[in-house]
């Protein structure tokens, strides 16, 4: 048995059946061993997408995602995907080949200091230069990736260690991993009870941690028991059913007016598995000024990092929510949450005639036709926000998106991972024409693997979100945000996959239904209104209360090039 066999066994032992990768010189012994093990390997077309695919696989499966690339350029290409997984706390194990141990430090062919390169974007990393270090390193990697706050880890394995005999030791396959559960101490719980007694305008803020702890049901029970409204972060979408009467929706920079207004005037925030990111809080000094804060997070370092909590529960979301539900419900105001008349972001869709086709219409169509357990994977930009706003997210792991890192080019790769993690669920990849062109090489992978998923390109011929900011903050000076692209129908045909196009909402409806019925990969080109903006919006660094709304909406008068009224 070689070191490479050990590596395959470690992956299988962690319950991972599919890996994503790209071979090269320094990882060849591993690729040779792959043929001897019942491990599915998906050959991507660019290493970043191996990382994104492992990320998508992990997010949807709830387990670990694994990617394997070679030394040097293979590993440097992977770095963006690791950064994205790190920012979103996704358990990814990256295995990189390294030059033979006697060549390390000699500037050998395709040698790069990979652990040094990825240090700030991995939870843990190590170089394996001796056979006896291999098993402990792999064991540790799979444990560290999922323990506590999950995150990406990297094991850089020298080629000679892969090719040489595996060291005999007591290495056992990891199997089922234990989670970093902690109990909630009684004193903290009492402190929460005191805050609850005094609260009349409480809000629960739910983040990614709720989904990662599998605490959706516990959150639902708590919200219903307390009768307290729930707002979610972008990554918290799916933590709470959006069609529930207590659901407020997404908070933050592009959250609904109603949601941010509610948070702004709350007297108690119960934040669960979220980290008060600047896209969520706006101007921190003005954030929810009258609210006491209970912060639940598994990472102690999040306590007081941005918002100073009155009570800090360092705990996984599920344990915490199950403890909180034992507390008596607060006496919530009759008029809570406040309703803001005319703030319905969806209302403007009804005012559109047949001559315009905007992305939110397409998302609404997708919401209508997609199956109940469909998975949506979004890229980064305007379409990402429109999906978040106009799609009704159901509980569970059904959305994958690069949130904290905002890595364009994420979605196609992550969509492949999502599909392979859940082969029987419908997968919709939604991306803009910018992000799509960063990852369109993966159409070949979709074709080769015959993955049954649909890539929907929200095509407006712009790097839309940057253009929107140029419109608003740079006086409409559109500096290098206009972009052309290939004819997507011809591109799809060139890759041998089904291509569809829509220029109107009616055509989009037909195209999306056809894509849904089609078995196999499909590319849908939605040619939407070019200069459309995501509303509502909080300008960066501004407080939650200062929301810019769509021109024509009852409370707003934002027009291109003008400073809009704020709600």
């Amino acid at each position, binding site marked *: 048995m070689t070191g490479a066999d050990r590596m395959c066994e470690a992956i299988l032992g962690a319950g991972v059946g599919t890996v994503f990768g790209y071979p090269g010189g320094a990882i060849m012994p591993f690729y040779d061993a792959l043929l001897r093990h019942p491990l599915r390997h998906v050959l991507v077309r660019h290493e970043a997408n191996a990382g994104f695919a492992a990320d998508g696989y992990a997010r949807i499966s709830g387990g670990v995602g694994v990617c394997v690339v070679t030394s040097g350029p293979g590993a440097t290409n992977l770095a963006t995907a690791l950064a994205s997984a790190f920012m979103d706390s996704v358990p990814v194990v990256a295995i990189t080949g390294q030059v033979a141990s006697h060549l390390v430090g000699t500037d050998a062919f395709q040698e790069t200091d990979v652990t040094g390169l990825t240090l700030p974007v991995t939870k843990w990393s190590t170089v394996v230069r001796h056979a006896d270090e291999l098993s402990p390193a792999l064991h540790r990697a799979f444990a*560290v990736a999922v323990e506590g706050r999950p995150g990406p880890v990297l094991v850089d394995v020298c080629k000679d260690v892969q090719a040489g005999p595996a060291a005999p030791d007591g290495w056992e396959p990891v199997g089922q991993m234990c989670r970093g559960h902690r109990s909630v101490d009684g004193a903290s719980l009492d402190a929460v009870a005191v805050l609850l007694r005094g609260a009349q305008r409480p809000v629960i803020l739910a983040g990614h941690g709720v989904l990662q702890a599998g605490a959706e049901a516990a959150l639902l029970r708590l919200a219903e028991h307390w009768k307290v409204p729930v707002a979610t972060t972008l990554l918290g979408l799916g933590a709470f059913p959006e069609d529930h009467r207590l659901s407020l929706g997404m908070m933050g920079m592009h959250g609904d007016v109603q949601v941010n207004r509610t948070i702004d005037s709350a007297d108690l925030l119960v934040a669960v598995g979220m980290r008060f990111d600047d896209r969520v809080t706006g101007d921190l000094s003005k954030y929810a000024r009258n609210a006491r804060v209970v912060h639940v997070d598994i990472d*102690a370092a999040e306590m007081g990092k941005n918002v100073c909590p009155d009570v800090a529960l*360092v705990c996984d979301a599920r344990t915490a929510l199950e403890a909180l539900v034992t507390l008596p419900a607060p006496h919530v105001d009759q008029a809570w949450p406040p309703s803001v008349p005319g703030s319905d972001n969806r209302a403007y869709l009804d005012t559109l005639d047949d001559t315009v086709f905007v992305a939110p219409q397409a998302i609404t169509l997708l919401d209508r036709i997609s199956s109940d357990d469909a998975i949506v994977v979004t890229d980064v930009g305007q379409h990402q926000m429109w999906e978040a706003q106009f799609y009704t997210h159901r509980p569970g792991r059904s959305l994958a998106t690069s949130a904290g890192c905002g890595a364009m080019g994420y979605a196609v790769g992550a969509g492949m991972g999502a599909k392979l993690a859940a082969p029987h669920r419908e997968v919709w990849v939604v991306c803009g024409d910018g992000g799509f062109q960063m990852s369109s090489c993966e159409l070949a992978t979709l074709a080769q693997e015959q993955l049954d998923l649909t890539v929907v390109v929200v095509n407006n011929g712009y790097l839309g979100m940057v253009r929107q900011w140029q419109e608003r903050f740079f006086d409409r000076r559109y500096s290098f945000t206009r972009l052309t692209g290939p004819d997507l129908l011809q591109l799809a045909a060139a890759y041998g996959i089904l291509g569809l196009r829509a220029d109107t909402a009616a055509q989009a409806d037909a195209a999306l239904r056809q894509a849904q019925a089609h078995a196999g990969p499909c590319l849908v080109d939605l040619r939407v209104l070019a200069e459309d903006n995501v509303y509502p919006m909080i300008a960066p660094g501004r407080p939650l209360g200062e929301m810019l709304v769509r021109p024509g909406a009852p409370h707003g008068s934002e027009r291109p090039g003008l400073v809009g009224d704020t709600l």
Partner: protein
Amino acid sequence: MSTRHRLLSMLVENHPGVLNKVSSMIRRRGMNITSLSVGETDDESVSRMTVAIDVGRAQADQAVKQLYKLIEVIKISDITEDPIIDRELVLCKVTAGRGDRSELLQIIDIFKAKIADVATDSMVIEMSGAEDQVETFLELVRPFGIKEVARSGTVAMTRGREGLRLSAKHQARTPAQQDLAAAERQRRSAGVLVGD
């Protein structure tokens, strides 16, 4: 220690790359290391680091939490406000002409320093003490003409019986036990600290 500095004491795994991980974490969080010393402990698999950073208490608290998230950091404690013994070693080469020597010897005597080397017109003085003593000492010898200074960085430990020790669990040495210990540390990384 001046009041702006916070002194962190930590036990870390003794293998390549750990110093890089620790210093890189401090840099990434926008903090500046003013003093750092590393050395093996009585257990060769464990090193002790003493790091001074020029931040306030709240930032130091954040630094401690972030550093404790590093898998290789076994224990960490902010000992700034604890009763501690802190020492720094300094080697100082000063100009010492014939006329200056007696005065220099007086200073050396006051600081319980030693002459480590003598040449015709200079000497190397070896002195150790708390950081402020070192500063005062250097101030006093400066008028003689300092040619060269090498400072070790502060090392420190708390007074009394309690201290930064490995628990029995962390002294486990088989690979499997080490992994268990790592997993346990990771679980605890959710919690606040250590330094029991």
